[in-house]
């Protein structure tokens, strides 16, 4: 009886616990706190945070409990991450809930979304310089796109061992958009620039909205076929929304499908951050480079908006450049917030959605390009 008791005790989490598990449990709890109390991306941080708690309960090998054990339930659910299944499904939902009107009304704002992708490629160079292999460097660089599903998708294809740290870094920075972006925005713009009011966008017809996903898909995927899984699903989701006759499918995509996949993705990504796998020097490097990537992307968008103003007759508010990173709709909301701090009657949210959405397309294109270069 005593032996049984000792055996049982040796299999408990208390006995198997490692200081790294404790650290990750604390990090997971912080994520849950930030999501619930501070409302920082609760739909992402709460599942990821709880996933961290799940993944850091120490279990002994062989029972089929851990996410890295072949026969565990978590492992099967994690399959959607490692095989890049969840990200396109999330893009399907994003497409089904996004209105591209502002983008169609002022297509020139799309260039801001392109400029912000400079962060991806500059960080790629930085990661190479720090000694990361090209496949790892590309996966780290994509964090600058501020698009969690894209980062997971590319990492699953290029550097599956880094999925945990890269996904957590990408989603953390997405959640921290309201903290990271405003200082850069204020630093790179003058008060006069922040006060610029945008012209009222033109009315966009239903037919234009319906044709856009088809044209965007064909054009982008002919140019960079590797962006097909992400852009294909994004555009398909949007077509379902705009076609009206497929409203039932659109509702399923933007509610049931995206919610289910977000839960599975968040929970399994969180669970993949087991202390012994996650707390390594490369994870620290990934977090450091991810932050730099995100800052460069924001700055590149802002600077490009200022350059555009040199040539445009009707000036645009350069704050919109910060929305070029594809954290939808958080970075657009931050633009609105910073703009309203200067002038409470200036409404930039609707305009900021244009570069924000083009950022999603741009980062998917960027991921496709990197994937095709570094296979």
């Amino acid at each position, binding site marked *: 009886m005593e032996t049984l008791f000792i055996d049982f005790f040796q299999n408990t989490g208390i006995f198997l616990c490692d200081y790294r598990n404790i650290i990750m449990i604390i990090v997971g709890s912080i994520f849950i706190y930030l999501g619930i109390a501070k409302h920082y991306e609760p739909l992402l941080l709460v599942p990821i945070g709880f996933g961290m708690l799940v993944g850091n309960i120490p279990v002994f090998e062989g029972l089929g409990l851990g996410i890295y054990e072949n026969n565990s339930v978590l492992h099967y659910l994690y399959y959607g991450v490692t095989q890049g299944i969840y990200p396109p499904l999330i893009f399907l939902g994003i497409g089904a809930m996004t209105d591209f009107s502002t*983008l*169609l009304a002022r*297509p*020139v704002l*799309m*260039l801001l*979304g*392109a400029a912000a*992708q*400079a962060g*991806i*490629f*500059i960080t*790629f*160079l930085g990661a*190479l*310089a*720090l*000694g990361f*292999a*090209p496949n790892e*460097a590309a996966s780290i660089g994509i964090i600058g796109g501020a698009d969690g599903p894209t980062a997971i998708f590319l990492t699953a294809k290029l550097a599956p061992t880094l999925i945990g740290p890269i996904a957590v870094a990408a989603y953390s920075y997405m959640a921290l958009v309201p903290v990271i972006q405003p200082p850069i925005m204020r630093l790179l713009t003058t008060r006069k620039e922040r006060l610029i009011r945008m012209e009222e966008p*033109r009315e*966009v*017809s239903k*037919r*234009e909205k319906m*044709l*856009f996903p088809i*044209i*965007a898909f064909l*054009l*982008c995927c002919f*140019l*960079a076929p590797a962006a097909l899984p992400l852009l294909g699903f994004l555009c398909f989701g949007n077509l379902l929304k705009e076609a009206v006759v497929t409203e039932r499918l659109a509702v399923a995509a933007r509610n049931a499908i995206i919610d289910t996949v977000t839960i599975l993705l968040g929970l399994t990504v969180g669970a993949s951050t087991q202390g012994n796998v996650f707390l390594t020097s490369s994870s620290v490097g990934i977090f450091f480079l991810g932050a730099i990537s995100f800052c460069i992307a924001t700055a590149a968008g802002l600077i490009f908006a200022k350059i555009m103003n040199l040539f445009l007759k009707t000036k645009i508010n350069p704050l919109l450049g910060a929305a070029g990173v594809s954290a939808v709709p958080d970075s657009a909301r931050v633009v609105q917030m910073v703009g309203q701090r200067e002038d409470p009657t200036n409404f930039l949210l609707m305009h900021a959605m244009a570069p924000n959405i*083009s950022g999603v*397309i*741009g980062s998917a*294109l*960027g991921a496709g*390009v*990197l994937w095709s*270069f*570094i296979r």
Partner: protein
Amino acid sequence: MYGLQAISAHNGWAISVVGITIVFTGLVLLSLSIAQLHKILDLWENRHNLGSLKERLLKKNQPEKILSFTEQQKESAKQFKLLARTMDDSFALPKLLRLAEVSGLNAPHSSLALLLESGIIKSEESGFFTWDREMFMKIVQ
């Protein structure tokens, strides 16, 4: 391998430059095509009126007929210009005619008719007239 050496060894510079160029090209092309989309759709929706549209376009693209003035007509136009200068930007035609008569200009009626025909004097919606400097320069000078 670290630093610039690592970047060069892994072809990093080329990948980055080509990568950002492709992303930019993709979005610029998309931006250009959707900027034209509403115009194409407008054309498609008004395809039944394309004939009249074509006529209007042809009319618009036809070069303006510029009348050629004789030396005497040019001189008369210069005198009318001086008179018009004494008036407001928008003026009444009878007033200009009266001024021309008072000033003793030769054949004021036919000169005024010529200026109207050539487009040097243009009518406004309000019923007043304006002096078109550019047209005057083209024809007279």
